[in-house]
């Protein structure tokens, strides 16, 4: 643990990359260039299933002499053959999609040609002149017609736990339960839509070395992918993602713009930039549609006696994309009779991908809506129902929890919201012509630690540099790593230089799953500890040193000195130690990773309680969320300012999930109809009112070496259910189909999902 009282960690300091970001000086993937570089543009398929008969680019070539190349499946340069060469560290099992592999069209918007020209406009306009003739096959894109073709994925996705075996007698217990509820829930596809377009700039070096600026959540994941696919050695490929304009999971897997830009750069031996269009962002990755059934049984007091949760989730024809959807229902509350089942069904669509709290955001919508419904059945307050079913143990895995301050979230969140003033009966609260509804839900996400390394360099003059191949996708990684090093080495955090977002820096996994702060933060802390040890070794070379008999735990770094913790007067200047050793700086590496032994008996989760107020205008069918309180237990908070922003962002995305977001497919053509930001609605300023973020105290010395659990996902968890529950409280309508749009509020939707 960090022990310095001069708190840098825990301080609400502004993010250190803010000055560059607010002045437009932070350069994102498409914002690197060199004279006479080439620009790419893709031609996207206009069918969802079939094959390419002919691609005619004669008119484009005639009109644009500046075209350097047009690539199709007929002339694509060679790339790796084996599936495993195409599988990045986050890939699901299956046959990874390979751009321009053959004449097959597997999904709407699939790139079928790639134009490289001397300017962005020429490439774009030339691409628009290319005509493609297809043999169209009838696509299947409607989940609800494919439920019967469900299957359990034969190969599990790495890092994703399949549902646990059933426990107890779930079916019998449900039949015999005093109270029973059961419902079907439907969620439509949602798209990440980070504000930055996916882009790759490949700068082709004179020595054949590629400097690749890519929009990604992991520079080293991309580097390995490029090396594998194009048979290059790692020293020929440098990947940089210093600034990432949002990703939310969409940047975990290498995307096709990377493949195209690298392919063209290698083929033409030129620098190439390719930034995709917003409409094409809808063909990359999405939170998958799924059909869920949750059945809950409870005794006369509302204690759960049976939990059954089944999900059928969309995937593509070519990959078995998996996420953890139903497992949460086996560990959120105490219950001894549990059956959790999870299946996939294949559609003519691109492979879905991880989107902020993948699985949990969807699964908890169903579970937490069902818990709300049960509370009315039992006739007790929804919050009280959750308290009655509290569990301080992971029954799925039969493990203890490293910590769970969820009761504090319930208590403090409810107090901040004013939950005790809630009138239980639906439709009982109103103001003017608006019905008011108060709903709540529990959020859960796994607190994970991934292997991470970091290097810290401390100069004799007190300058500190932190290096790691970690990423900051808006999460605050730059800032918290600076704070951790600053506290350990006792320098102002503003003076720490943090270098991340580059593949040649110390090994770090992709930024995702809320694990970066815990993992890279612990690695930086370990590197600082190693620096202290080095300094102590230097000091102890002097027999007269006051630190002669001290251990590393007994010394601290203060004001440029190595001092005894118990007697700060006893110490030696770091500059003197380095001078004596003939060094101007010392550099150490630290690493962190999961503790296999501890994981045998402990599981670790973040928790939240979300309280929502909606106001519904029944005549218009309009629901507005006017207040949200999100009370979060996530271990140690490194920076309350950036931490709060993480939760705000999760809540806003949850409100979008609840009320706005839906990628609409015309099932006759299998094509996405609203692939733009005017028709795919993400929350705008006017949609977002009061959001109160509250972190409860939670001490955890097992989740990670620095006591951090991570915040990227927990903010979105439970939000959609809390909104749906508030809408039920306001209107008496239980809507189980997201997003809850006007038509559903106006329509008769009680009891059925669709």
């Amino acid at each position: 643990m960090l022990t310095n009282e001069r708190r840098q960690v825990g301080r609400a300091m502004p993010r250190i990359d803010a000055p560059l970001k607010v002045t437009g000086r932070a350069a994102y993937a498409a914002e690197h260039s060199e004279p006479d570089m080439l620009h790419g543009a893709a031609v996207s398929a206009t069918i969802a299933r079939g094959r390419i008969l002919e691609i005619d680019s004669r008119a484009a070539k005639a009109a644009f002499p500046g075209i350097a190349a047009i690539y199709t499946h007929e002339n694509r340069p060679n790339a790796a053959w084996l599936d495993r060469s195409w599988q990045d560290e986050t890939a699901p099992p299956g046959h990874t999609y390979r751009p321009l592999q053959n004449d097959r069209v597997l999904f709407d918007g699939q790139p079928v040609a790639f134009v490289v020209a001397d300017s962005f406009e020429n490439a774009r306009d030339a691409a628009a002149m290319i005509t493609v003739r297809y043999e169209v096959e009838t696509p299947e894109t409607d989940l609800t017609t494919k439920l019967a073709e469900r299957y359990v994925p034969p190969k599990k996705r790495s890092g994703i736990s399949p549902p646990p075996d059933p426990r107890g007698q779930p079916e019998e217990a449900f039949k015999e339960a005093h109270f029973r509820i059961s419902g079907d829930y439907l969620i439509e596809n949602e798209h990440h839509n980070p504000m930055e377009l996916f882009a790759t700039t490949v700068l082709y070096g004179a020595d054949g070395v590629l400097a690749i600026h890519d929009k990604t959540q992991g520079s080293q994941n991309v580097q390995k992918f490029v090396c594998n696919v194009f048979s290059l050695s790692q020293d020929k490929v440098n990947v940089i993602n210093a600034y990432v304009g949002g990703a939310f999971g969409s940047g975990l897997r290498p995307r096709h713009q990377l493949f195209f830009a690298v392919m063209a750069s290698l083929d033409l031996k030129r620098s190439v930039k390719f930034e995709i269009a917003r409409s094409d962002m809808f063909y990359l990755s999405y939170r998958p549609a799924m059909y869920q059934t949750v059945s809950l049984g409870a005794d006369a007091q509302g204690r759960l006696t049976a939990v059954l949760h089944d999900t059928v989730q969309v995937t593509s024809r070519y990959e078995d994309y998996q996420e953890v959807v139903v497992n949460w229902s086996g560990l959120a509350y105490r219950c001894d009779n549990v059956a959790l089942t999870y299946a996939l069904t294949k559609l003519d669509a691109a492979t879905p991908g991880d989107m902020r709290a993948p699985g949990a955001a969807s699964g908890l919508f169903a579970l937490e809506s069902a818990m709300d419904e049960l509370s009315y059945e039992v006739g007790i307050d929804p919050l009280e129902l959750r308290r009655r079913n509290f569990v301080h143990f992971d029954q799925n895995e039969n493990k203890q929890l490293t910590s769970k301050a969820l009761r504090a979230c319930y208590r403090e969140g409810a107090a901040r919201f004013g939950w005790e003033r809630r009138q239980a009966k639906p439709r009982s609260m109103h103001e003017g012509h608006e019905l008011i509804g108060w709903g709540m839900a529990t959020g859960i996400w796994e607190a994970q630690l991934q292997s991470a390394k970091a290097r810290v360099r401390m100069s004799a003059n007190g300058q500190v540099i932190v290096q790691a191949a970690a990423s900051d996708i808006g999460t605050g990684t730059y800032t918290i790593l600076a704070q951790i090093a600053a506290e350990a080495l006792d320098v102002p955090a503003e003076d720490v230089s943090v270098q991340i977002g580059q593949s040649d820096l110390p090994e770090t996994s992709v930024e995702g799953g809320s694990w970066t702060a815990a993992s890279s933060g612990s690695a930086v802390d370990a590197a600082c500890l190693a620096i202290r040890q080095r300094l102590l070794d230097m000091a102890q070379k002097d027999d007269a040193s006051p630190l002669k008999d001290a251990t590393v735990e007994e010394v601290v770094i203060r004001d440029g000195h190595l001092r005894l913790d118990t007697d700060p007067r006893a110490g030696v200047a770091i500059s003197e130690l380095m001078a004596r050793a003939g060094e101007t700086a010392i550099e150490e590496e630290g690493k962190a990773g999961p503790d296999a032994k501890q994981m045998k008996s402990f599981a670790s989760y973040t928790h939240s309680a979300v309280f929502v107020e909606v106001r519904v205008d029944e005549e218009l069918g309009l629901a507005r969320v006017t207040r949200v309180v999100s009370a979060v237990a996530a271990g140690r908070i490194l920076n309350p300012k950036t931490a709060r922003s993480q939760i705000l962002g999760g809540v806003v995305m949850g409100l979008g999930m609840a009320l706005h977001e839906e990628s609409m497919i015309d099932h006759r053509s299998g094509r996405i109809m609203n692939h733009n930001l005017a028709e795919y609605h993400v929350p705008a300023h006017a949609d977002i009112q009061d959001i109160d973020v509250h972190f409860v105290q939670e001490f955890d010395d097992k989740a990670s070496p620095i006591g951090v659990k991570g915040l990227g996902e927990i903010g979105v968890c439970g939000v959609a259910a809390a909104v749906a529950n508030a809408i039920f409280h306001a209107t008496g309508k239980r809507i189980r189909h997201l997003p809850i749009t006007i038509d559903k509020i106006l329509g008769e939707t009680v009891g059925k999902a669709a």
Partner: protein
Amino acid sequence: MPSAPPSLRTIPITLTINGRRHDLDVAPWTSLLDLLREDLKLCGTKKGCDHGQCGACTVLVDGVRINSCLSLAVMRDGAEITTIEGLGTPERLHPMQRAFMEHDALQCGYCTPGQICSAVGLVSEGHAHSRAEIRELMSGNLCRCGAYTNIADAVEDILEQQQKAAAE
């Protein structure tokens, strides 16, 4: 649709960008956004949709906020343009830039230049008098990281400062 090499079809224009005069030959189909980003390397102005739907490309033209992706560069001949780079520098932040930093009104930072230019335009328009009006009048600028409440705090802060200064 273009059918001849673009070099044959450029049009001379003059723009004053961030106080500096630029004499330019631009293709008639080049948007103001692409001119700024691709030709002048002023990449602080962002491309988020190229369709006027997200606001990331907001700049000030003669003091008025516009989506630069919806304007052809040639339409702005003679105009005075302020981009995020012209508002302030990391060493000398514009008050709105400082307010964004202090209120953590950004996360990934990609919509941020557009939000800030839009907010500066909003303040000079003088139409926003309440938080509700700020929210409504900033709704052309999307933020997927969900920094909206902090952005509203930053803008409110500047509005209040301005009202106080005006009262004195």
